[in-house]
């Protein structure tokens, strides 16, 4: 229990620090919001009135305090321009991001697990080296360049998938999923390499252990040794990395979301920064940071479940 408590405290502290830092960072931006809202030909008095009304005249700590108080009531504020509640806007953008993220990570794991295992199993073969080279090459492709190539091949030439756009789930799962395949692939094809590499190197180390030798001596088939005995102790580093990647994707798929015109959180954040819609930016940053720390928290807890030693060390020490 102390293990969980300490982690949770750390989580809250990081969130407070990140949101406070964002407030300070955003305060540096040249504020023209009031001018924008007042429109052309507005008198300085109008602008001042709008600033006052939006509470932009208060100091950073005061505004941050007000924002925090709002959070405690479950209120993220209103968009400066559309007056739409920030929480509503985020709620409408989040499903797209989550679907993209899930599909991308699913693709990445589907590639990384079998290839990592096979290439650890045949660690001195030509296959191992070939897979290593392939991975090395793919890891060097920027995901947006890969996306352009995928769009050219699979939507312009072969016409298998749409190039842009996102159809809502209500129009059918098939059509909806089709729109996510290329974006998810362009993320996954770059991400899986790192997962595969750490899994492979951990697995090669595990396969040297005595209990594997024992399993071999008992005459168990390779398949069983690899999947039942070697995989579980070998996937810690990969899990950590998987967590970090997933956390980064919550707001980090901006380029892919833009390229495929998917209305996700990344796009919302980008457009809000450009229009200096502070409450919206703050809401997105909070969501991204919460996602990031939560994923890392879950990974830590999973560690404890997979390996009792971690749990014992953390609560004993």
């Amino acid at each position, binding site marked *: 229990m102390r293990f969980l408590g300490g982690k949770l405290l750390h989580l809250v502290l990081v969130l407070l*620090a*990140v949101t406070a*830092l964002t407030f300070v*960072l955003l305060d540096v931006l040249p504020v023209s919001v009031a001018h924008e809202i007042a429109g052309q030909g507005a008198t300085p008095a109008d602008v001042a009135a709008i600033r006052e009304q939006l509470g932009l005249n208060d100091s950073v700590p005061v505004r941050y305090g007000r924002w925090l108080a709002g959070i405690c009531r479950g209120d993220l504020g209103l968009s400066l321009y559309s007056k739409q509640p920030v929480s509503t806007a985020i709620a409408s953008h989040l499903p797209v991001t989550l679907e993209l993220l899930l599909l991308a990570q699913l693709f990445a794991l589907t590639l990384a697990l079998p290839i990592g295992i096979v290439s650890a199993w045949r660690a001195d073969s030509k296959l191992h080296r070939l897979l290593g080279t392939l991975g*090395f090459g793919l890891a*060097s492709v920027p995901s*947006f*360049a890969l996306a352009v190539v995928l769009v050219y091949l699979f939507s312009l030439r072969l016409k298998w998938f749409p190039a842009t756009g996102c159809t809502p789930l209500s129009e059918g799962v098939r059509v909806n999923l089709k729109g996510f395949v290329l974006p998810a692939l362009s993320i996954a094809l770059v991400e899986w390499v790192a997962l595969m590499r750490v899994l492979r190197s951990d697995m090669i180390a595990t396969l040297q252990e005595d209990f594997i030798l024992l399993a071999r001596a008992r005459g168990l088939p390779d398949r069983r040794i690899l999947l039942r005995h070697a995989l579980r102790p070998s996937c810690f580093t990969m899990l950590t990395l998987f967590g970090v990647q997933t956390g980064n994707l919550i707001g*980090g798929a901006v380029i892919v979301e833009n390229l495929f015109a998917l209305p996700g959180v990344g796009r919302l954040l980008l457009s809000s*920064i450009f229009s200096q819609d502070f409450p919206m930016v703050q809401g997105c940053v909070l969501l991204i940071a919460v996602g990031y720390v939560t994923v890392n928290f879950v990974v830590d807890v999973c560690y404890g479940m997979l390996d009792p030693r971690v749990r014992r060390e953390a609560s004993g020490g």
Partner: protein
Amino acid sequence: MVKKRGITFWLSVAWIALVMTCAVGAGFLPLPAPDQIDWACLATSPDGVHLLGTDNVGRDIAARLFFGARVSLTVGVIAPCIGLVFGSLLGVAAGFYRGWPERVIVGAIDVFLAVPRLVFLLVAMFVFGSGLPAITLALGLLCVPSFARMARANTIRFAGREFVLAARATGADDVAIVLREILPNALMPMVAYALLVMGYVIVAEGGLGFLGLSVPAPAPSWGGMIAEGREVLERAPHVSMIPAAAMFLTVLSVNLIGDGLRGWMDDRESQL
């Protein structure tokens, strides 16, 4: 046994040398200006006049590619250096003094890593102004935390070793120990890591360019060129593919060189 570096290593070196030559010589080569528009040739394929063809508004792709290489290389070389210098300072300080400086630095790194990168980059560019120096500085600052983490880990590893103890026994002060005993040892793996970061930074700059946030148009950047070529992707795919291939080969080369150097350093270390 020293592993021989293969042909891929030297091909990578050759490619980087070629890109550097093109970037430096872009102004001297007999090429049209990168923003000069040839209305007669819109998105044409490579021919005698335009070596690599023209883009969707009739600008020479070769010229834009060479001038764009300047952006990628400047960012790719300088940003990791910024990260290396400041990251080492912070990391060594944290690892050498331990106690509260370490707690402050490690905490700051944790927080920094949880701030969405895009927010940081955009705000940094608002503050520093747009343009190449601003982008380089912003991406450089983004590299600091990972270098700092690595420097700290390495410093802790070496600070307890016998040669540091020996230096202290001869009366060396902290500065001398850090500079003469710890840094030379801690720095080696970080330089190899810097090459990995170089590839990452080139991709990151490309991503900014792709979103139209790198050097202001009409100045060319590889990421921007890939994005612009999407308008004519169907009938003239080379407009996007040429800069994409250039970026891929450059990042791949940097990674391969880094890999080769790491192998070389591991060999050296095992000989010690």
